[in-house]
């Protein structure tokens, strides 16, 4: 492997031949440079897409912060090169390197990869290949870094099982320390790779795919996923933190333009709404909130340490944050600087949202985003996101009246049992929204309509349903394009993208071969519309005698054993199934802040809840253990 100096010397000769060389050199403010020679455990954190996207990934910011707080470990960053620089790297034999020390990734003890969405799978293989590492876990030994992965794809890690040594299920803040310590211990004990993997499998929330095997039924579905060896758990329960730790505030400030280039504070994790299509809503439970004071302090610190002029409060549903009104008011008091712009994503469709946005609005932003997701009452009941047309139209009218000129509406097509009438309702409703705008502010009113296509996700009530076929999607999109008329700008998802996302998200272990073949034949950057290679994917399925429609269009049996059955998000399958049935009956389930529906989180994590009484968690209180035990005792003695 090349030394950092050799890598830098090669870089100097090639960087000016590629676009945006600033992506590949590091040197950002707040980047942490530790002493490579004296630190025991070295972790490279990798986002498997380009710098411009990866630099803003909040998960990696948290891990970078957590690891670098340790005296015995260091974390550096790596991203994928864009196509032009990838060619240059391969031609000049420059291995994938970390931006801080310029050490090749192969020199690290751990490579931690965040895989928040499935279309990063081929990029992940590409990154391992550029790092000069064997792609398959089975082909790597003690001389190679441990490859760990995490992020939302951890709720079904099976498609990537052949490549990842250990997959983290759930939240990373605590488990990363357990992993770092285990790797350090194993390294100083000169243990074999097998011994390390076995030890890692003992850590709650860590899944070591190579220690499990899958049996299939005759129809190709999974019969069982079982441990291959004794002493590893038969079911991997996701890891959560009882209390959100202090958020990172010393963000790395990129030297070049990047997406979401701003300071962020996560105000709340999880969501109580229970929209049935939403993967995050079902897998990031329970809801835990930070106090307004902690959020404000973090905001203040991060603005001071970054110099950002933009601040965003992160959560799955800003309106649901208990202290939202108080937060908005306090933000204005604490940050009188009129140059700071503050954003609140995911607001509910109600006029209170406007008050919040207006409260924050120092500089009026042009657009206001609303996400009704469906346009008929029937559909809204099915997906459990219930608002009325009247609510939407009233809110839209007020938005235009209060000075915003553009509304962006998010809808999805492809919800279970959706018909063309339901799609036509999207057209009608959008036209009504624009009409409200025209009435309020005339021709200045604009409407952008974004219509995604639903891809069913594992561990959600819709894990049993099939994705729309090409014919269905095309018919629905054609209808939208034809009927929408002038004045509304429409964007949509290409059906091929939906298919790729669908077979990958509910795939099983056999997809590892497909992913490998697709990558070998050139598939990468699958999330980039212009790089899509659907044919390559279809050929990869054919090569391994697999049928993509088995994963996409096949409705699952009610008693189907899923490839992710051994991975648990603590939400009971029975609960999810009941929710699915209620969906078929058009039954709404209200926000679980109002009433606990016993999804399974509380029994699983009741010790954590007990240790953290009070308002931080949105789940009901759990009685102190002692008292309950005494009660139980007295019940028994009676």
């Amino acid at each position: 492997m090349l030394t950092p100096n050799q890598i830098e010397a090669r870089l100097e000769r090639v960087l000016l031949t590629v676009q945006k060389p600033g992506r590949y050199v590091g040197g950002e403010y707040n980047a942490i440079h530790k002493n490579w020679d004296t630190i025991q455990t070295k972790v490279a954190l990798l986002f498997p897409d380009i710098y411009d996207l990866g630099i803003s990934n909040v998960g990696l910011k948290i891990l970078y912060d957590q690891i670098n707080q340790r005296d015995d470990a260091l974390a550096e960053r790596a991203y994928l090169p864009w196509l032009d620089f990838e060619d240059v790297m391969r031609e000049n034999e420059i291995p994938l390197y970390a931006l801080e020390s310029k050490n090749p990734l192969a020199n690290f003890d751990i490579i931690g990869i965040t895989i928040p969405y499935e279309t990063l799978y081929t990029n992940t293989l590409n990154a391992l290949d550029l790092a000069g590492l064997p792609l398959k876990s089975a082909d790597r030994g003690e001389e190679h870094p441990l490859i760990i992965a995490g992020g939302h794809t951890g709720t079904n890690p099976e498609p990537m099982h052949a490549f990842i040594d250990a997959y983290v299920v759930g939240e990373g803040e605590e488990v990363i320390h357990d992993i770092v310590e285990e790797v350090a211990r194993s390294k100083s004990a000169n243990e074999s790779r097998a011994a390390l993997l076995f030890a890692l499998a003992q850590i709650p929330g860590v899944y070591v795919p190579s220690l499990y095997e899958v049996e299939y039924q005759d129809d190709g579905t999974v019969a069982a996923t079982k441990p291959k060896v004794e002493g590893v758990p038969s079911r991997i329960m996701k890891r959560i933190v009882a209390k959100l730790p202090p958020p990172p505030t010393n963000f790395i400030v990129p030297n070049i333009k990047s997406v979401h280039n701003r300071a962020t504070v996560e105000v709340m994790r999880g969501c109580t709404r229970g929209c049935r299509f939403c993967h995050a809503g079902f897998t990031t439970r329970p809801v835990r909130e930070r106090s307004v004071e902690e959020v404000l302090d973090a905001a203040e610190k991060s603005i001071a340490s970054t110099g950002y002029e933009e601040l965003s409060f992160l959560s799955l549903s800003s309106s649901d944050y208990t202290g939202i009104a108080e937060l908005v008011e306090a933000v204005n008091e604490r940050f009188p600087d009129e140059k700071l712009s503050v954003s609140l994503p995911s607001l509910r469709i109600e006029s209170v949202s406007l008050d919040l946005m207006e409260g924050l609005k120092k500089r009026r932003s042009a657009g206001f985003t609303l996400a009704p997701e469906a346009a008929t009452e029937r559909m809204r009941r099915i997906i459990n996101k219930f608002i009325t047309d009247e609510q939407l139209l009233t809110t839209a009218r007020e938005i235009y009246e209060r000075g915003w000129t553009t509304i962006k509406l998010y809808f999805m097509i492809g919800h279970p049992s959706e018909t063309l009438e339901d799609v036509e309702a999207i057209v009608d409703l959008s036209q009504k929204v624009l009409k409200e705008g025209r009435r309020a502010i005339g021709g200045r009113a604009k409407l952008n309509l974004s219509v995604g296509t639903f891809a069913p996700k594992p561990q959600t009530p819709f894990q049993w349903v099939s994705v729309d076929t090409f014919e269905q999607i095309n018919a629905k999109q054609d209808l939208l394009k034809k009927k929408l008329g002038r004045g509304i700008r429409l964007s949509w998802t290409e059906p091929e993208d939906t298919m790729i996302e669908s077979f990958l998200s509910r795939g099983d272990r056999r997809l590892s071969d497909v992913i490998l073949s697709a990558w070998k034949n050139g598939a990468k950057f699958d999330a980039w519309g212009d790089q899509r290679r659907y044919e390559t994917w279809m050929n990869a399925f054919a090569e391994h005698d697999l049928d993509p429609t088995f994963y996409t269009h096949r409705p699952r049996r009610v008693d189907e054993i899923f490839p992710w059955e051994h991975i648990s998000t603590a939400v009971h399958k029975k609960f999810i199934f009941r929710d699915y049935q209620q969906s078929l009956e058009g039954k709404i389930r209200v926000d679980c802040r109002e009433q606990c529906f016993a999804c399974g989180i509380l029994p699983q994590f009741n010790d954590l809840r007990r240790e953290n009484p009070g308002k931080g968690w949105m789940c009901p209180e759990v009685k102190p253990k002692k008292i309950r035990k005494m009660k139980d005792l007295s019940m028994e003695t009676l």
Partner: protein
Amino acid sequence: MSEALPQKRLRIKFAKENALRYIGHLDLHHIWQRSIRRAGLPLIYSQGFHPQPKIQIASALPLGFSSRAEFVDIWISPEAEYSVEGLQKNLPEGIKVSSIEEVDLRAPALQTQGDYAEYEVTILDEIPADELDLKLASLMDAESLPREKKKKKRGKVRTFDLRTLILDLHRLPLDGENERIYMRFTAREGATGRPDMILKEMEIPIEAARVERTALVFKA
């Protein structure tokens, strides 16, 4: 008018090196903006619909060049206290501040004040000294060097005389392994010479040279 606001104007001289070599002019603007905010210096903003912080960088440095002589003017509140150290610790590693001085608010824009600039160019590949001398001499001795330049917009071609932009070119005494060239060009608005123009004449690709601006001299 923003001039109505009480303010002072600082001229900061700085070096741009290492990773910052690969950061373009526009991005550098944002880096200064955020660094100044981190340092707690209240920037003055322009008036109007899209207020912009008042920051002027003297002369755009092409991507890949390092420099020991960059200048930026910033306008801040008059009561703000500043120091080289205070600013330095809020800058990314590739920017080194060498001095800060207060200048007259009415002084003309920095971009219009350039006179000439000096560069040191290191040739990374081996090149015989006499061949280098010959080539530089032929450029210096030429009466005129008419060249074409494509404008970015609409691809229009403009002709210019490269010779009038060159003030001096000569080989520097050997120090280390690589040959180095001293170059001096005019740096006036609309008449700015750059080392990459000379490298192109010598058929040396830009990535085969290390270019450093060593001085930027303003009109007297």
